[in-house]
């Protein structure tokens, strides 16, 4: 502080102008937001690359997937001779800006998700169909993977690289020590939760601050109670959200809520995993791509980690379905180097390439039939088995439905439910979801 003179400045003139500036800035900041969407935040690296080189927009921003992705692109360059310039963007930022990114100056190839979440953008003409690539790589993939990679128009738009199952994780040592058994039915699971609680454990670690993890619990209970077809119909709003079968899902979930880590809406899932690592929690339901990956990141004991498939609720469906989201790569409509980019995609669609990616990835599994991955650990081997055992796999609530609707609207409703799992809340969020779904799904489709 330089002293008095700072504060003795002529009052009225300066401050009024300041205020006007503030007013202007405030008005500008409110008003300018819509325009923000018009500016691409994507990479500036596109453009000047010559023949035989492409740019690749990547949302693999966490250290472990980033290095695995680096290995993949290196292997691709080695095999195809195409130089690849990777542009890595934080994954939340990447996803949130995807619309303006794809309309601006996108990289040639970009990382994305299979299912409806890809189809929305394909329908809007932002992704280039790659049927000719699939002519060459089709034989490598099972029919389920092919179905995931098609748009609503029947053309192929994505080459998947891996997928991973959503399952219930636990520490082997905890189960051994306390003599717990793997539950295969809902009642057994509730009994186990009660036992864990009396042993001073949090039965289910849970973090929902990011808005999406709890959607997985909704999905699995819905799949167990109402089956795969119903899930897909609900996601596309062909069944109203006020349907009594949706009420059943929330009611079932409410039975579980007393055993779930409280305050989930203020906890990121990474912190929930840490509760499991510290053996303060008995179980956690999430994808291997999160739980197992976090164990690796935190240098926790990955060998102690194990999982089981979500227990059966209705014998009609047994354990036939689960969420097993697939990630992959798309070609942007505005790509500048189409031919070399397709060459790279052809390479990525081989078992050899998936194996190269998975060399340093200890949680995802390959989709290609011919992928031979000697580096699989116990979690990955089991993942392959449980996915194969499913009659059908769903992608995820925000991949099977309109992603904006899922991540804003359904997530907010689920947050409300988590904070107050009562019949009154369930009723109010169902009618609110239905009212909002009507607007969203008629406006766009």
């Amino acid at each position, binding site marked *: *502080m330089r*002293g*008095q003179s*700072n*504060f*003795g*400045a*002529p*009052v*009225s003139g300066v*401050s*009024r102008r300041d*205020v006007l500036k*503030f*007013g*202007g800035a405030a*008005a*500008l900041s*409110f*008003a*300018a*937001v*819509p*325009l*923000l*969407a018009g500016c691409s935040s994507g990479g500036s690296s596109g453009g000047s690359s010559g023949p035989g080189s492409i740019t690749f927009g990547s949302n693999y921003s966490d250290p472990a997937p980033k290095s695995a992705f680096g290995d993949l692109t290196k292997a691709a360059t080695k095999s195809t001779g195409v130089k690849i310039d990777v542009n890595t963007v934080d994954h939340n930022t990447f996803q*949130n800006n995807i*619309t*303006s990114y794809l309309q601006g100056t996108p990289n040639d190839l970009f990382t994305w998700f299979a299912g409806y*979440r890809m189809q929305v953008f394909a329908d*809007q003409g932002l992704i280039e169909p790659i049927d000719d690539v699939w002519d060459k790589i089709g034989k490598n993939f099972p029919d389920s993977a092919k179905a995931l990679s098609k748009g609503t128009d029947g053309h192929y738009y994505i080459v998947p690289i891996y997928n991973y199952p959503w399952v219930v994780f636990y520490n082997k040592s905890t189960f051994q020590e306390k003599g717990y058994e793997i539950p295969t039915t809902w009642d057994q699971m509730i009994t186990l939760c009660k036992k864990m609680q009396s042993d001073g454990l*949090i039965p289910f670690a849970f973090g929902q*601050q990011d*808005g999406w993890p709890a959607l997985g619990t909704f999905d699995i209970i819905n799949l167990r109670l109402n089956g795969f077809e119903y899930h897909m119909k609900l996601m596309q709003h062909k069944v109203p959200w006020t349907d009594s079968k949706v009420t059943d899902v929330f009611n079932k979930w409410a039975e579980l809520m007393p055993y779930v880590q*409280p*305050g*989930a*809406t*203020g*906890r*990121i899932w990474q*912190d929930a995993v840490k509760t499991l690592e510290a053996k303060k929690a008995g179980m956690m339901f999430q994808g291997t791509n999160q739980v197992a990956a976090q164990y690796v990141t935190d240098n926790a004991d990955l060998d102690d980690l194990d999982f089981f498939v979500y227990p059966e609720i209705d014998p009609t469906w047994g354990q036939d379905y689960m969420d097993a989201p697939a990630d992959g790569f798309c070609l942007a409509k505005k790509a500048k180097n189409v031919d070399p980019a397709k060459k790279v995609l052809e390479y990525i669609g081989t078992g050899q390439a998936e194996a190269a990616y998975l060399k340093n990835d200890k949680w995802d599994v390959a989709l290609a039939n011919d992928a031979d991955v000697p580096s699989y650990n116990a979690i990955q081997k089991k993942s392959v088995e449980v996915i194969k055992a499913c009659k059908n796999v769903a992608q995820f609530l925000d991949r099977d439905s*309109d*992603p*904006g609707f899922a991540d*804003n609207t359904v*997530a*907010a*409703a689920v*947050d*409300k439910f988590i*904070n107050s799992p009562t019949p009154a809340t369930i009723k*109010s*969020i169902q009618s*609110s979801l239905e*009212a*909002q779904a009507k*607007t969203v799904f008629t*406006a*766009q489709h």
Partner: protein
Amino acid sequence: MTETEKQAALGPDAASAAPTPRRRRRALRLTKRDRVLLIVLLGIPLLADLAFVWFPAVTSVVLSFTSWNGVGAIQPWVGTQEYKFAFTVDPQFWPAVLHNIIWVLVFGLIATPLGMLFAVILDRNLKGSRIYQSVFFLPVMLSLALIGIIWELMYSQNYGLINTLLGRTGSDAINWIGNPDLNLWAVLVAASWRQVGYVMILYLAGLKGVDASLREAAQIDGANPWQTFWRVIFPVLKPINIVIIVITVIESLRAYDIIYIMSHGTVLPGLELLSMLVTQYIIGQTTRIGYGSALATVLLVIALVPIIIFLVQSFRKDEKA
């Protein structure tokens, strides 16, 4: 007279002469060069104002009557449908309005008076007054985003300072940011921490500018310190009071960054704010530019009210002078 001297002389003169009737006579006497200079000096800021303030503002109002999803041509036109959706369907809209109002009230009834109180106390030339000033002013020099990070660490459920001090680190740890009944207040404490210092510094500047003879005169007339402040000093500080009211309202309405940091960019239950909803719909995977613009327009209208009041007030004063 050199060019720069002329420019310097012209600048403040032209500005202060604006509203008075003498202006016309003087304008006639301006040389051609002066007139060109005036046009350039006024034209550039005017263009910037139109391009960066009015164009986006009008555009978002126009967009609010569409349900454009951000891809391709701007369509379809849906009239006031998006507004109806906000007012009747969106479950996050009214909580957001309520939270914005709570924010204004907390700033207006707690943070601002507290800042004024600090200013009045520090104005009495206490020992170490400058140290106190620096301490209270320090948060103002930090960006709200940084304040968000600092307080997020303090509020962290499992590792935070506050829960550690309260001794609640086990399963009874308080979830400050996740609990929808607590989190708005937790954030308001953090935001007020900064606002108090901000108001204090503005008010202190005002107090320093008060003519000391006023205070003396009041004392000679036998007024006690309380009366001196409320009857003499406070009315003299009218311009600064208006500034503070406007700042309080505007700071409350543009509250965004601190919440964005603390909630990691998602709209958490209990922390819905209009500004958060606007970005949620406009910056997202499948954008609803139309709906986001409607929300932005609502916010713009609310923000215009205090600005208009302020402008009317200050122009009226200029006319009298």
